[in-house]
């Protein structure tokens, strides 16, 4: 198991380096630079001086190494768009609403989805099965900005139960959380239904019935345990969405989270901020997949044994 984790961590580090190089090159391959404004173009000599102070006149490889060296020491530089701040400070500040929104969205969406999917599997072709399928399909196919608009229209405009947008007091959180939770809910409703049905149709379930085990125990002791593996393993990947998936929701509900900076940093060629955000996503992805693999190994005896044998 330890060997398995070490191997995974090494491959994760290699992936991370490759990804950072690709991101860096792509970022710089977008034409234009941070000082190419349209309205008040800077004189060339001033621009050159600014570029030199920020080290942007150096060759790309040198810029990359400098940035990554800084990043290793948790120094991600100063964002061009707010020079009084640091990238770390800015991200730390905007991080909280994003995590609150994403975390609560998953916390509400995933369990409801799991319950819905389980109910659908246990009562096949009943109204709850159709409801779960309909919700799952809608949740996965309708873009989140349409869902958001719909929620605003129904709950804020027609029913006037909640404010239409903003953050701050928890009353304003309700709609964004519902919008954010739609995808985890839909994903889990589908997943839970499929994995439960898969486990329910195994002959060992028939054997358990033949042995006289009650239906409730069959489901809780055997079926759920088998169905849980795939469900647990997609969970870490959901967390990455906290940083990425909420961009639209944050924009629709004007939540002061990280989402806005993804757009503005690219738009303004704010290299230090852009790079930091991209590295953050890569790190989250790497860690979540590592966690998923470890969880899978812990839960599944088949993998556990193979890991031990090696």
């Amino acid at each position, binding site marked *: 198991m330890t060997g398995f984790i070490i191997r995974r961590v090494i491959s994760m580090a290699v992936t991370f380096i490759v990804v950072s190089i690709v991101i860096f090159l792509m970022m710089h391959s977008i034409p234009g630079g941070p000082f190419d404004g349209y309205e008040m173009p800077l004189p060339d000599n001033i621009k050159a001086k600014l570029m030199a102070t920020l080290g942007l006149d150096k060759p790309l490889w040198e810029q990359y190494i400098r940035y990554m060296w800084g990043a290793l020491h948790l120094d991600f530089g100063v964002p061009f768009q707010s020079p009084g701040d640091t990238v770390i400070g800015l991200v730390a500040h905007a991080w909280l609403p994003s995590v609150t929104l994403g975390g609560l969205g998953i916390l509400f969406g995933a369990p409801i989805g799991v319950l819905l999917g389980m109910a659908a599997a246990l009562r096949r072709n009943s109204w709850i099965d159709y409801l779960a399928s309909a919700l799952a399909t809608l949740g996965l196919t309708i873009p989140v900005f349409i869902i958001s608009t719909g929620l605003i229209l129904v709950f804020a405009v027609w029913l006037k139960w909640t404010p239409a947008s903003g953050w701050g007091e928890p009353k304003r959180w309700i709609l964004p959380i519902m919008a954010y939770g739609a995808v985890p809910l839909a994903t889990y409703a589908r997943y839970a239904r499929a994995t439960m049905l898969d486990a329910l149709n195994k002959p060992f379930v028939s054997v358990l019935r033949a*042995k006289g085990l009650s239906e409730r125990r069959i489901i809780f002791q055997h079926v759920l345990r088998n169905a849980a593996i795939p469900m647990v393993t997609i969970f870490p990947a959901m967390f990455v969405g906290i940083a990425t998936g909420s961009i639209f929701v944050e924009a629709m509900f004007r939540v002061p989270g990280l989402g806005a900076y993804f757009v503005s940093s690219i738009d303004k060629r704010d290299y230090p901020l852009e790079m930091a955000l991209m590295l953050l996503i890569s790190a989250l992805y790497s860690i979540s997949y590592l966690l998923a693999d470890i969880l899978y190994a812990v839960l599944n005896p*088949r993998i556990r044994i193979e890991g031990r044998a090696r």
Partner: protein
Amino acid sequence: MSDTPALELKQLTKRFGDFIAVNRVDLAVPRNQVVALVGESGSGKTTTGLLALRLLAHDGGQILLDGEDISTLSQKQMKAYRRRLQVVFQDSYSSLDPMMTLGEIVAEPLGIHGVATAAERRDTARGWLEKVGLDGSYANRYPHELSGGQRQRVSVARALILGASVLVADEPTSALDVSVKAQIVNLLQGLQADMGLSMLFISHDLSVVRSLADEVVVMLRGRVVERAPTDRIFSNARHPYTQSLLDAVPVIDPAARRRRTFLSAEEITARTPRITASDLVAEPLLDTADPQLVALAGSHFVEAIVAERATP
């Protein structure tokens, strides 16, 4: 001991929508005997097994376990009877919960019925693993570490650990290769003799049936078309479908190879045997010109048309 069969099905019927999967099936498994239920895929033999186990709701007829009607019991009431009535399925891999060790799997029935303490259950399970020819150390292993034959042994141990008297074996050897198949058949045969098991052995493999069964019941499209002691089926099959099943058994010696006849559904219907009333040992149940199951000498039943005044 009385003549009450260990397991008896009377006029058992199951419909799936308009399709009649099991159509008024009668069969009886006498104590300490093996009755084979044979037929092609889709003939209703597996469904019959599931109905007998009360794992599938039937639409008509009765299921008698040691003479007691269990067909109307609730699943809760069934629990007590389940100790006596057990099952082994074909797919040995998915028959075992992949999350559990073999020891846990084999011991679980004891836990379900609240038999013995946890430690005793573990020991009993180990004992059973050894009884079916596996090392006791297998108790700590997982199903995926075993071969198909080994897994099937575990299924057998699990089925019999509660001291079942009736075993429904649904194609337990069909997924195994020939040599392993023989081992499992030997195991079942040995356990059957040791424990006085009565077995309903569902199979399409007539060579296995021949070595194991006392009686053979042939199903076709949900109906029992022939039923007779094993020797009689192999020597004197009367129904064209049974004959074509026997023809389909591979013969290794090329010189002894017969021409195989594969009959279509229409051909089988057209060749339904006609039997004169004087050949019957019992009055036919129905006064009809349609095919019905009739009794011949030597405990031999066949679906036939009773020809009233046929000339000999």
